[in-house]
């Protein structure tokens, strides 16, 4: 739930999603769900010459399982808060 909550706090910010098929798309984070499926608005492909495949796409739903990386706006990430949340999440007794 840590990353779900984290990404909810980033809604409205600009990110770059790099997919496992090497496609990179930038856009504004519109929403995220518990599987880390992500919806972006104002979508732009980073290398449109090489990847014209989705050039008329304006907003996109990306399945969480095909995401490799998400580049984040560093100024909108509270690293102190993240570390505390990680320690809390990981020390919780695990539910079987």
């Amino acid at each position: 739930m840590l990353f779900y909550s984290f990404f909810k706090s980033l809604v409205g910010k600009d990110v770059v999603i790099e997919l496992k098929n090497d496609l990179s798309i930038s856009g504004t984070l519109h929403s995220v769900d518990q599987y880390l499926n992500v919806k972006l608005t104002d979508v732009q492909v980073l290398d449109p010459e090489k990847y014209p495949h989705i050039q008329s796409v304006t907003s996109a739903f990306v399945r969480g399982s095909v995401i490799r990386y998400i580049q984040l706006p560093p100024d909108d990430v509270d690293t102190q808060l993240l570390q505390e949340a990680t320690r809390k999440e990981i020390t919780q007794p695990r539910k079987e």
Partner: protein
Amino acid sequence: MGDEGDQVATTTATSVEEPLDLVRLSLDEKVCVKMRNERELRGRLHAFDQHLNMILGDVEETITTIEIDEETFEQIYRPTKRQIPMLFVRGDGVILISPLSKQS
């Protein structure tokens, strides 16, 4: 009662009983993450979960492509590097995490 709760919290925070406890010790430290498809990341570990989803700061990614020389048939390893200030990494691509010592 409150003391007992604190006791449990401190022991679980310092003891190493399973692999993820070791990853926890690397929080706020520089780590090296080996990924699938010949990718390697170096950066500061800010967050992770049980899937090894992670957030790394000041990341350097190295992608190694292997080319074969057409004349000598030698394998040429070509590393390409890039810098990413803040990066979320999905855990399913992670092969291993290794703490980097302070000097490297």
